[in-house]
């Protein structure tokens, strides 16, 4: 990373001119040739589509318009107004946030707990790491299916096990109050990746810090709070952001279990309607592209706000080595 730091650092007063003169170098053109694939991809698959998406969000673009049966007309803020009036938008946002709030802290806590133990184990640590990582390589569609069979209220093995210890299990997959918790539990099952990240961060904490603390007479709790947590805080912060963004865009597991061509209306419960699922249905099951584009921008804005808040939050709690 050193070379980048050298580059982004201060420049002499004639910075702009030097910047422009760079284009006289052959190396510059070669560099741009090398990054051309990304530039094309960015323009065609990211920037261009974003512009288009914003435009569509102010139109009534639907299947009649795409097919050319009817002309496209601008509808001003109608789609955005509909965001406010469609009760399913509020439901889907609430579901998504509740689900994210359930999964992210639970996943982080479980992963950290496992990583703390694994990092200190004298033997079998590698074996357990493999075992705990295994659920993380399960395709999300398979997770959605496993959810349906393991959590079935009357014959599922989860309730059988709960019944064994005297707890009457809830109807996870049909009771609206238990749909999101069961999804969250399946999500915590795939905690392996997060755990591996913490494990790597824990192993990177220099031993001498612990030795010094031990000499100072710090107990395990104080060592954890004063050394371990600050030293792995970048990893915690990273997973916090990544898991949050992923949680806010949950789709495959939920769609597999509760939506799709097989659902006749007796399925597709409101309690499982996530933001991206509703976006997908509006866009591709009903082809309301204008409205769906407005939904996409709402989602984008929300993710930006949440991530921004997390960055602000991190400024106080995340400790980067080498910074003052």
């Amino acid at each position, binding site marked *: 990373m050193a070379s980048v730091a050298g580059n982004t650092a201060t420049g002499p007063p004639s910075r702009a001119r030097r910047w422009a003169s760079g284009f006289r170098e052959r190396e510059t053109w070669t560099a741009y040739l090398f990054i051309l694939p990304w530039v094309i991809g960015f323009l065609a698959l990211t920037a261009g589509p974003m512009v288009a998406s914003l435009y569509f969000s102010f139109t009534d673009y639907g299947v009649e318009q795409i097919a050319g*049966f009817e002309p496209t007309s601008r509808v001003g803020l109608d789609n955005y107004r509909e965001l406010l009036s469609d009760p399913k938008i509020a439901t889907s946002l609430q579901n998504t946030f509740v689900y994210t709030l359930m999964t992210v802290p639970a996943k982080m806590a479980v992963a950290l707990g496992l990583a703390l133990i694994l990092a200190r184990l004298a033997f079998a640590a590698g074996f357990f790491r493999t075992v705990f990582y295994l659920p993380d390589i399960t395709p999300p569609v398979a997770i959605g299916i496993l959810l349906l069979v393991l959590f079935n209220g009357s014959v599922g093995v989860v309730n059988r096990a709960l019944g064994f210890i005297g707890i009457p299990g809830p109807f996870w997959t049909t009771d609206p109050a238990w749909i999101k918790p069961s999804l969250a539990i399946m999500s915590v099952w795939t905690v392996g990746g997060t755990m591996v990240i913490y494990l790597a961060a824990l192993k990177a904490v220099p031993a001498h810090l612990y030795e010094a603390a031990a000499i100072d007479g710090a107990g395990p709790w104080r060592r954890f709070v004063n050394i371990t947590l600050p030293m792995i805080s970048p990893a915690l912060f990273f997973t916090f952001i990544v898991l949050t963004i992923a949680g806010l865009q949950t789709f495959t597991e939920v769609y597999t279990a509760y939506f799709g061509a097989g659902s006749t209306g007796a399925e597709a419960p*409101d309690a499982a309607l996530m933001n991206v699922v509703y976006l997908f249905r509006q866009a591709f099951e009903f082809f309301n592209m204008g409205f769906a584009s407005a939904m996409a921008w709402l989602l984008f804005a929300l993710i930006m706000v949440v991530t921004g808040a997390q960055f602000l939050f991190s400024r106080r709690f995340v400790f980067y080595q080498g910074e003052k």
Partner: protein
Amino acid sequence: MVKRWSKTALVVAGSVVCMVAAGSASAKPDELAGYTATQATTLEIYGLGGRDDVAQGRLDIANKVMRDLGVTVNNPVSGFNNQAFLARLAARDIPDLVHMGRGDIGTYAARNALVPLGNCLNAEKIDRKAYRQAALAEVTYKGQLYGLPEFTNQITIIVNNDALAKAGVNTADIQTTNWKRLKQANKKLLKVENGRLTRIGFDPKIPEFFPLWVKWFGKDLISKDGLKAQLNSREAVAALAYTVGLINDHGGWNKFKAFRDTWDFFGRNNQVAADQVGAWPMESFYYQVLADGNKVNFTAKYFTNRKGGPLTMLSGNAWAIPRGSKNPGLACKYIKALQSVDSWRTVAKSRFDLRKRQGRAFTGLYTANTQADVKIYEDIYQPIGNKDFDDAVALLVRAPRYAFAVPLSPASTEFKLAWTDAINRVLEGRQTPRQALDQAQREAQAAIDKAK
């Protein structure tokens, strides 16, 4: 270091958004160039999924008609799916002929995506009067016919005699005229063992058959012209409260559904053979599942209205021609070949022979074409000597006389979604029947107003 990167990244992301916002005015989807029709020698068909002997037999007949005209037929096995059909419309990869649920016709007709079949009927001399009125009502929008209905799937009640005997319930108690008596029978029939539901008493089959329960009062969910939803009528609320009550007698919707989800619905060990249900209303095709499964003792009965008169609801698929079909003329010929009385007769005969060879009951074919039904019953059907099945067939043949269908609306897909969602909310215990249907009424009417 890392922080600086992330800050820069945020700034750049922000400026991209601004750029995008500024540049948006210039983006315009290009207008579609005129669509030129090409001389089609292939007939593209879409929407027919899993095919049994009857479907394949009719396709063979119609394919032969096309072959004689020098036309090849492309008809991949794939059930109709809104997403796929819309995607094909959007890409102007439009099939010449589609097979779709009658409940979806209204939405596409109102979206201008189907052509009216008036010309087709005239050109091919297809007799509109031969078709059952209730089935035609499902595919008629603003006075125009947009699809030709296929089967009728009339609903009758299947009573599991063994379950009734075990529970000490009389067959006469399984009826829908007297709701109080039915409720008592339901409570007696359902079985809970060690806190687990092991037999459903009387399954009212909601949300699917909700319109039937409302029709008990003589009421419809929507006005005849399909433009006024009447989902929150006093009668609809009462029907919903009653049917939800039948389910709640089992210990609630969750128990009920979780149990029902594990049934082998179409298999040999189906819910009647496995003694998992006492009685329930079901479509006509189900009798063949019973005939194919393990041995059962059952009675078929009419669903009756409040005055005791028989009542049944029709539903099913229809053939329609999308706007943009490259050869509507050929598509119409194909429909005619599929749906003619002769075709129905031929395939019914082969099914009858097949069933006979297998030593299984032929439980009839029930089409939207009255003439075909008469032919099938009079020329082909023979009692097989199993009283349960023979009685059932006799009942099914008469049933369409007492039929109704939910009138079609310009937002038929959304309309159905509104009331099924409402019923689910009540089943889940989140709303009272009144609240749920009030909300459904608002949603449905808004969708209809937007679409008409």
